[in-house]
């Protein structure tokens, strides 16, 4: 019906916008596959294609190759940066620290987005951030100061105190009650039935298990808490900049 060769000799941005607006994935890809243009331009549009229809990994490959063209479109750079504020850490790192280098950070908005993301990699105690993000950032910053090994040690000495170190008094109370309960249960059965009795051995096994879980759990909880605070900060940053810095793909 149509000959491939006679199709599109030059990329038509308005037509691609039309395909994008109508979510026409097959047509968009076919257009790019049959377009005769420079590699830079094709990579630029392939990055848009993968951004909308494909996956972030393929997007990053094409975006890295199309840097010279991306540089001219700050609105698009802002659009991509907002997207990568809250994505898989290795992909966000590649975007902010490999592709969006100093040559691409051409305006204050891009510099701000780069700073907001990089604070999760190199936290600073005092930094100028919008009021809406300060609280989440401070919570995240405080979480970076907590050491997993310290929490583990605290919980090893008095069960649950590692969670108190993380400002989680309820979790501390329940942890202490559980380990304490199993401890007393073991003591009671040893007193009544003796240490050789199967019930005492089972109780002691449960007590040891819960004690170990309490130590390891406190250690892991510090790491989990850090990840959660980081995620929360980036989610809020992403929502905040979505409204503050309007941008679009076309």
């Amino acid at each position: 019906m149509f000959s491939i060769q006679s199709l599109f000799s030059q990329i038509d941005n308005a037509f691609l916008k039309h395909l994008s607006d109508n979510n026409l994935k097959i047509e968009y890809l076919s257009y790019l596959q049959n377009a005769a243009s420079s590699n830079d331009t094709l990579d630029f549009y392939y990055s848009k294609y993968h951004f909308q229809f494909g996956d972030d990994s393929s997007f990053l490959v094409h975006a890295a190759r199309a840097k010279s063209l991306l540089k001219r479109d700050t609105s698009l750079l802002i659009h991509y940066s907002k997207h990568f504020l809250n994505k898989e850490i290795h992909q966000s790192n590649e975007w902010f620290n490999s592709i969006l280098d100093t040559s691409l950070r051409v305006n204050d908005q891009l510099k701000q987005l780069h700073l907001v993301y990089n604070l999760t990699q190199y936290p600073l105690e005092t930094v100028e951030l919008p009021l809406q993000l300060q609280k989440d950032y401070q919570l995240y910053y405080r979480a970076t100061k907590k050491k997993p090994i310290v929490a583990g040690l605290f919980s090893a000495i008095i069960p649950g105190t590692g969670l108190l170190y993380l400002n989680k008094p309820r979790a501390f109370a329940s942890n202490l009650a559980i380990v304490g309960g199993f401890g007393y249960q073991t003591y009671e059965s040893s007193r009544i039935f003796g240490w050789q009795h199967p019930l005492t051995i089972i109780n002691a096994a449960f007590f040891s298990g819960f004690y170990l879980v309490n130590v390891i759990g406190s250690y892991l909880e510090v790491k989990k808490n850090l990840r959660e605070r980081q995620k929360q900060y980036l989610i809020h940053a992403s929502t905040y900049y979505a409204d503050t810095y309007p941008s679009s793909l076309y």
Partner: protein
Amino acid sequence: MLQRITLILILHLCINQVFGQQQYAVNLLGFEDRIFRANNDAVDLIKLEKINYMINADSIKGQIVSELKRVNYSSLPDSLQVNALWNASLIAYLNKEIDLSFLYWSKYNTLTNDTSTQSILLGYLTSENLNKTVNRSLYAKLISCDSQFVQFDNELHKSIELKGNTFKKVSSLLLPGSGLLINGNIGKGLLSMGLNTGTFFFVRFLISNNAWVNSVLWGSNLIGKFYLGGYRLTTKEIDNKQGRKQKMRAETSAHLLTSILDKYPLSLRLVY
């Protein structure tokens, strides 16, 4: 060498499919290029052409439905609009987008007031959960055409709620495991009974030895596990039985619908 020959052979065998797919995408792009460059009057006609092409090319129904949603049917000439709406309703129904299918069918029916069995059947199927009044009036028309519809409608509206579900749940609370036994899960029921009896004697043994902390902690743990667990299992097994009955009903309905559709086939209509 053997690997190369194998690869060449595979490529040779699949060449039509590979390039066929490419040609399909290029053709879709061609239609879209025409839509983009056409004036307002022609846009919807080209969209219909594109849909026709996709139907003939046996495209994924979801993709066709996306295209159907783009068409402004009211801008089409009446002669085209009728068949386009019929196709839209049928494809949306096959893609399980019943709301959309009913919407298109309603527009089609307003335009044509089609009294053919096929049209009434499509309306009846799409209005099943959306508009009871329309559904019942269409059903009345259908049974006057063919008594086979009575059997289908009865199957569709037959109650599949199992009797005695509440009794089984209460029974499993009063005598652990009995709910499962009544439901027909003999093995699980006996196991649940055994575990709960064991828990009772174990806690009694602890109390008789004045191991109060042990009796409270073990008791609460084991009761939570076996007594409440048994109740939850009863609920789950009742749901499973209900699900099996529902599946059987669905299979019977599908079988009846197939024989109805053999008699009154719902087929796409040529737009051009």
